[in-house]
């Protein structure tokens, strides 16, 4: 190990890395660095995060009963729920009218949210889902407060649940649509 070998090897590493980036198909093919680079040219092409990625929370409004579990379990209390009871038409003809919790307000303040996913996890009625969608930044911080219509819009972007790895005993759930 003289002065030369380690430093020459280092030069070799950088040169090899550059060649691999410029000629991803092999040195005789035409160069195409955009293929060889590991980065993605973001506004032009979007990276697809994993289906489980926690991007934004979507609300399936019909399923919500305004039970407040999510709001209570939220570690930083960023979910605001208001609701009232109202009579819904009976399920069967002639039956008594059912009492139903109607949702007035369901806001999540994404400026405060820690993206921990506890609300999604504790929801007993499958009303909240994670969407991997991540493009919802706003110039004004107040606009990060998503109301229930905005949250409902995210439902479209919620992917189906993945199947599990072999050996798993968990059941694959369904996204209500």
């Amino acid at each position: 190990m003289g002065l030369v070998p380690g430093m020459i090897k280092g030069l070799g590493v950088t040169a090899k890395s550059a060649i691999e980036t410029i000629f991803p198909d092999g040195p005789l093919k035409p160069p195409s660095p955009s293929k060889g680079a590991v980065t993605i040219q973001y506004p032009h092409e979007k990276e697809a995060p994993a289906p489980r990625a926690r991007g934004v929370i979507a609300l399936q409004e019909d399923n919500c009963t305004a039970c407040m579990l999510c709001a209570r379990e939220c570690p930083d209390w960023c979910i605001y729920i208001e609701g009232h009871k109202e009579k819904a038409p009976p399920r069967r003809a002639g039956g008594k009218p059912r009492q139903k919790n109607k949702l007035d307000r369901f806001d999540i303040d994404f400026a405060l949210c820690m993206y921990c996913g506890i609300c999604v996890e504790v929801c007993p009625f499958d009303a909240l889902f994670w969407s991997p969608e991540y493009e919802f930044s706003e110039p004004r911080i107040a606009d990060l407060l998503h109301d229930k219509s905005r949250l409902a819009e995210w439902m479209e972007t919620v992917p189906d649940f993945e199947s599990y790895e072999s050996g798993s005993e968990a059941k694959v759930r369904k996204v209500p649509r």
Partner: protein
Amino acid sequence: MTTQIPDLSEQEQLRYISQQAADARVNVEIETEGMTLNLGPQHPATHGTLRIIAKLDGEQVVAAEPVMGYMHRGYEKLAEVRTYPQVTTLVNRIDWVGSFANETPFILAAEKLMEVEAPPRAQYIRTILHEMSRIANVILGIGDMGVQVGAVTPIFFAFRDREYVLNQIEAVTGGRFHPNFDRIGGLKDDLPAGWIQNTKNAMEKVRDFCDQIEELMYGNEIFQARTRGIGIIPKDVGLAYGLSGVNIRGSGVDWDVRRDNMSPGLVYDQVDWKVWTHPDGDSYSRMWVRLQEVREGTKIVDQLLDQIPSGPIMAKVPRIIKVPAGEAYVETENPLGVMGYYVVSKGDLNPYRVKIRSASFNNVSITPWLLKGVYVPDIITILGSLYFILGDIDR
């Protein structure tokens, strides 16, 4: 591929230390004006908001004092007003580059109090994720050391290849940095299909990274000149300051909580692996042990992936978790060193008191001893080789 480097003898260590003292004496005679240099709180070498007040004589440090607390977020206190499931989402922000590993000891402590044990499948996945966050963390540390000694490329290699690991963590937990995946009694969810194979590919990439960085950085004579024989921590001094993890293994102390004091709930005893140590105790040996640990980590992950048993991932725990009164302390070997949680419960939904023993706090507390007599550029390499995360110091 592993480069074996000759060890510095104990004599050489001593000579280095006495040399520093002698240098300091000579400079006092010439009487140049002293200067106080504030490294930080905003400084590229302090990984955040650590401040080091260095009293300089020329470029030599006469005294150095780390000032902590610029990023204190009060997690110990916050945890007292959060329920147990909520605490995990807080604590994985402590060491934000190896975040899953922060959850493990807390959950294990809670499980110990509740006397539940996660099913084997959950234990395996937990160990895999714990080890993967170590890999993600340490890769970044190695690349960051490149930046500290002035090489621009290693950090980009590190970011590139850490991404493969983070992608796998995200695919299973949903969060790249803040997984919040550990639950008392098991895990939140099972592995998605195809994950095992993808993870094995990612581990292959990490091993390639190790080879690459070894040639690019570790083998470089300039890097060795900057790190070998610099910042030597003798065994006993390191132990006296409570150093842990790689920093003490780099001084030749063969102590790893994963092997020696493994808490139930992790399955390190099921795999064949080795605790790496290096007798030198200098910056280079610390970085060298780090690199070997990444390699060893990929081996552990590969073996565990092959062995994952089938079964449930959640033990039977009540829906609303109340931890019975009692006290428990659990420590695990985290990427930065030993991390322990002392949880005191009064039987409520909240822990009564949580004391967090984070590794970086102790690792940094040796700096006044270690930085005395070194040159300004060496402050940077020594801090880089100690490798701390600010969140882990100011909890």
